[in-house]
């Protein structure tokens, strides 16, 4: 199957939309789980852009980077979720505005 007809900028557009939505989620959610999800969305957006660019240049590198992004996402989420558990335990909340002891 070939993707001759899909313009690159449309795909990038979609990815940028995803990126922006993820960023919006990051900014509006206070629950740490949602925050982590938003991060996933952003990473996914970047991955989409990479795969699209790779396809544009006809190189496998885009997909290689995609795989590595997956790895990164997995590692981050693993540690992140570990932290979520600790947050729940130590702060008795998942609200990051509430779990805020340092400022100034």
């Amino acid at each position, binding site marked *: 199957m070939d993707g001759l007809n899909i313009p690159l900028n449309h795909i990038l557009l979609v990815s940028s939309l995803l*990126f922006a939505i993820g960023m919006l989620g990051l900014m509006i959610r206070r629950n740490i789980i949602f925050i982590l999800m938003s991060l996933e969305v952003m990473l996914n957006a970047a991955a989409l852009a990479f795969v699209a660019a790779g396809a544009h240049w006809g190189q496998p590198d885009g997909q290689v980077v995609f795989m590595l992004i997956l790895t990164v996402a997995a590692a981050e989420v693993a540690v992140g979720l570990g932290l979520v558990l600790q947050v729940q335990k130590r702060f008795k909340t998942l609200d990051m505005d509430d779990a805020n002891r340092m400022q100034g």
Partner: protein
Amino acid sequence: MNATMFSALAPILMLSLTAVVLMIQASIKRDQSVAWVITAVGFLLTLWSASYARDFIQPVTILLEVDHWSLFFTSLILMASLVTLVLSKETFSSEGERKEEYYLLLVLSVLGAVVLIQSSHMVSLLLGMELMGVALYAMIAFPERGQLPLEGAVKYLVLSACASAMLLYGFALIYAATGELSYAGIGARAALAYAENPMLMMAGSAMVLAGIGFKLSVAPFHMWTPDVYEGAPTPVTGFLATVSKSAVFVALSRFYIDGALYQFSGLNTALVVLAIASMLVGNWLALRQKNIKRLLAYSSIAHFGYLLVVLIALTYLEADLVSQSITFYLTAYIVTTLAAFTIVSMVAGEDTAKQNISAFAGLFWSRPLEASALTVAMLSLAGIPLTAGFMAKFFVITVGIQSGLWGLLAVLVIASAIAIYYYLRIIFAMTQSAQSSGNSANWQEKLAAIVLMASILALGSWPQPFIAYAGLL
């Protein structure tokens, strides 16, 4: 891959080996001191291997570029890591079970930093940065109790991941524009790509800049810094402030130089704005900060602002002087900052109340060694002659003058003048009489403090050997 490549990879291999040995050790018998010794030996061997690798410098696959510069920084961060290790022993001995993971994470984080330093490709940059970061999240959150480390870790993780996403998206745009992922490849095609589609290339580079700027805590991406510095265990803060930041900066400068990004004036403008913002914001924030770790966080913001001046000068100067300046500045910065955190760790430990500057009162009389070292460190951060920090600033100003960056230098002078105030505040506090605190430090820590203080003074008063050495890089 051939044999010489493996030789060139010796530091990375040695670190990986250390990680493996640590895991094996943990599975056989958990013992903190054994883990400590293994890590120490591993770092020392890596240090040796870094000099061994000197004879085999070459690009290793497309991902890594092992050259003198990167090997120098490899050694440097290994020394810094050794200091971190020394400080960690005391700090984490009070933890409950399973503190051996810490050493494993430390080794992995150092590994990430080494990869970052040697990276010559977006992928290795990404992986190095993430490896270092992921290990650091866990290191920050390592203490069993307390909310601050956890809060610091969460903040660092979320914000750092956000920055990584920006970075990745930027990479993707650059890739879309150039079709290249290696620095050299980007450098070769950058001008062409710019001609074809200037905005894509620039927006991509800008996003990369933002992502990396976050790690360097350059304003306005600096917000996380104080919270994470304060929350993290002090040795980890020291590690984060020195190893992590300098590795990222080295990677940034390689990307900037090899990727020939300095040719784009838009990017340069962006850097100028970031530099100015960092210098001023960092120092303003630090002015009346009471917690010394937060204060050092703010000070580091300013320092990377100063350092950015050098990067901006790339547009006007040949890379040699610039990379020399970066070498000197980062070395001075690492030594000085480590000294500061060493003393903070020795004196205040993890006790937030003791991290208040007023708690340092009378240190000159109760613990003269620590006070002297901290004084020297503060003077160095402030850029007073005879200290490494001064020579570093000397480099920056020289480079700035040679490039004619008068506006930036003016800001630098103003910022440095503001900065003197808060560094002096600490020194002043130490000179005032107060009841003495009876903490004591172990000999390794004392040795580290002495060595660091001596290095600051040596770099500042007799920098010639070092400059000669750095000139070879």
